[in-house]
């Protein structure tokens, strides 16, 4: 959600039960403004909150003009002092995939993971235990990256691609119509397209290159990994990810108001196939 319209956005996303306390809200409004100035971002998003056992991480993201360019991620424990996180690498994601359980809320906490490694010593093969230490900060980076890639959502038309490549906010976007808002195909993954290249020419025929340049949620696997609901008597459409429980996307049809927020434990719901 845009840091500038934080209050309205929180009110719209409150249906999932996760909001911010008044003091957090107030401090976010203040500090994110400063973040925008200091880091020279064109847009600052309040990304959400990862619930730790001791404290929570508050996450914000800074965007430059090109909306699909790699985002800078910042975290804070008190909503006032923000620290920049390094960009996620594939190595990081792989390394942290072994960590299970909840976040602690301490970036310097180290998870210990015992890795069994086969060691050839002459003829014999030993299994040696190697303790891998993984910092929680690394895990935080990788989880945010995974969530962003999997479930960040933007309605169709809110962004458009210029002929030169960069993606900009569509100033003339006036919201989805009511009939479009009920379809998953009207929502896109807010990331560089992955699936789009695999589409056949026939499927691509109807796409508008300036608008349909991202993957739609329609083809997400497994099917039904989104709960789409009309709340407040059709005045608000809310998408909840079932794969990453805690991610709420909201949009008021007919207006520009849209955004997503993640408030959760930072764990993927791997039980999803059993639960549908």
């Amino acid at each position: 959600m845009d840091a500038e319209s934080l209050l309205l956005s929180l009110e719209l996303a409150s249906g999932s039960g996760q909001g911010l306390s008044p003091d957090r809200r107030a401090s976010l409004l203040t500090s994110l403004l400063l973040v925008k100035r200091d880091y020279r971002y064109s847009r600052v998003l309040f990304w959400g909150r990862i619930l730790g056992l001791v404290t929570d991480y508050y996450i914000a993201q800074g965007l430059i003009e090109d909306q699909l360019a790699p985002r800078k991620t910042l975290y804070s424990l008190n909503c006032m002092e923000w620290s920049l996180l390094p960009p996620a690498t594939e190595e990081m994601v792989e390394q942290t995939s072994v960590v299970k359980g909840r976040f602690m809320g301490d970036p310097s906490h180290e998870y210990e993971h015992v890795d069994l490694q086969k060691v050839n010593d002459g003829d014999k093969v030993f299994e040696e235990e190697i303790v891998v230490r993984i910092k929680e900060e690394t895990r935080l980076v990788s989880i945010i990256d995974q969530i962003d890639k999997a479930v960040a959502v933007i309605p169709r038309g809110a962004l458009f691609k210029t002929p030169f490549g960069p993606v900009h906010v569509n100033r003339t976007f006036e919201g989805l119509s009511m009939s479009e808002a009920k379809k998953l195909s009207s929502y896109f993954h807010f990331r560089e397209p992955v699936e789009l290249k695999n589409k056949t020419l026939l499927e691509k025929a109807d796409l508008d290159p300036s608008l349909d340049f991202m993957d739609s949620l329609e083809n997400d696997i497994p099917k039904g990994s989104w709960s789409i609901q009309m709340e407040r008597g059709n005045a608000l459409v809310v998408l909840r990810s079932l794969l990453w429980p805690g991610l709420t996307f909201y949009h008021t049809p007919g207006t520009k108001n849209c955004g997503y927020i993640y408030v959760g434990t930072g764990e993927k719901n791997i039980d999803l196939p059993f639960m549908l």
Partner: protein
Amino acid sequence: MEDSTAQKQEKENQESGEEERPWGEITAASSQDFKSGLSEPLESEQGPETEPYSRSSPPGSPQSRDSAPLGDLTGPGASSPPSPPEEPSSTPPLALSGQGLEAPRQAHPNHSVIPEAETPHSDHLKQSSDIGELTHLTCQSTGNAFPQFQQTNGHLYEPRDVSCSNSKQKELRFDIFQEEDSNSNYDLDEAEPETAPSVLETAIQNAKAYLLKTSSQSGLNLYDHLSNMLTKILDERPENAVDIIENISQDVKMAHFSKKLDTLQNENEMLPTYEIAEKQKALFLQGHLEGADQELEDEIAGNSLPNVMESAFYFEQAGVGLGTDETYRVFLALKQLTDTHPIQRCRFWGKILGLEMNYIVAEAELRDGEDEEEAEEEDVTEERDNEDSEGEEDDELPRSFYKAPQAIPKEESRTGANKYVYFVCNEPGRPWVKLPSVTPAQIVIARQIKKFFTGRLGTPIISYPPFPGDESNYLRAQIARISAGTHVSPLGFYQFSEEEGEEEEEVEGGRDSFEENPDFEGIQVVDLVESLSNWVHHVQHILPQGRCNWFNPIQKSEEEEEDDDEEKEEKEFDYIEQEVGPPLLTPISEDLEIQSIPPWTTRLCSNLIPQYAIAVLRSNLWPGAYAFCNGKKFENLYIGWGHKYSPESYTPPVPPPVCQEYPSGPELTEMDDPSVEEEQAFRAAQEAAVPPAEENEDTDEDEEDYD
């Protein structure tokens, strides 16, 4: 005048003949451009075509006709800035040479008369001055139509050069007067395209180039946008276009991003919006419907409605809860519930998210003697179940030896897991639906499955192990589990009621009723945050059996099913250890950890102003369950998917081992075929034993093989 007309004809002939000359091409080209450049109404364009007729026409008519185009030519010429200096400067010198009183345009033919008589070259001069006119005209035409600008521009310079050479030729023969004339003409020609039009041209070019500049953000340009806008305005011709020009501009831009859909529009798409608004309107009006003051007083006295907004305020401090707006609607819906149902006490339990719709859950305690109907209904359903099972038994099909374990009866309403009654609705304003009471079997199975709620109570639960009931039962089971796990209160808020004898309760496995402690003095918020032992469970723990109070299945079986097999009784005589859970009002510090994850997280809602902060408790076992306490008041709330947290991934239980179909014995087991050696050995043995009985050998062999 006759001369002038005759000479004019001659000139025209020459003009037509000039096309064959080297520079004639250029003039022809420029005149073509001139034709194409000018719009049709200009009569001068028709000049060359109509001229042949003018030869036979009276002398006066060509002049009048000539003057007519002039009017047309000067007309636009006067409007454009560069023309005024040109008109007087070009024509007066020429006019001086001939009849000065004539109109400037007429001066051309007359002026050409003088040199014409002497030399044909004067035609060039005239031509050049005509070209001057042309350039001037083309300048005007550029004002009308930009696209031709460059085209004509290219031609402009060439005729000028031609006229220069012409005037040089003239210098050789003409007198000074004419030389001056030619010079002035030359200067004029020189000045005309270079100064005035070039400024205009470049200005126009620059302006257009600026307008055509594509935006670096959108790739559009203002020129196209303006022309699209004008097209749209002219197509649609709206009233007071100037007032809505901003919107037109926006519409034009938005048109880039909207697909051209067919004209079929769904008219009904707004209907549900109005429908729910209509329903919620009833919520807001319900206060007015009850007019009687008497009733109002009674209500206030026997208030069963909780102050939802107050607890919502505290939860907001904790950063949880629905929005203020939604909470208030829930509040009104709860009021509606208490008005329409005989409810002693109720509270807002929470919200369970579903795939299609969500559930708003209200926890209620019915007034005494109001839950009889429900009990009757349940009896009916139980009877039905019995009938069904009997019907199956009547069949001739082979009967299963499987004996279902003794069904554990469900707890009476107002006790154990069925202590409260739960009402759910999908959205404030929609009707409240009472959930059926929960059975131990449902709780046991609900622990083994993990399914999303859909939001429709009648949905069957398709799972393994099969869940006895539909979504309403599953929802009720989960509510019971969540309540048992997460409903906590500060230590000392509740106390055991003293009236009941302790001995009786011990038999039941723990006291199950409590009352509010009137002497509760409150606990310091800091203490609540620092020590979990200041929080206690005030909802009974649900045993693995699915009940809160342990039920001994053995006693039951002896009483009711006396004709059971001895074998089974022997089995059941094995002592079944009584399941014991933590008693009521146990501190939550004794809750079990989930694989080294503490089950609760406590914190102060604000570190900035700690003196007025409240204590917030978050369950890690049931994500979404919260409790707050400000020292005196406390409340529990659950908003979530209704699933228990587990660090391990869910694995459905393994199906039980397959039952034996029949007792297996040596007759039924397969044996290896004898090898050839064995057969031969056997045969040899038989031959040795019974030499005479050779005939039966084969059959014996076969029989033994089958054994």
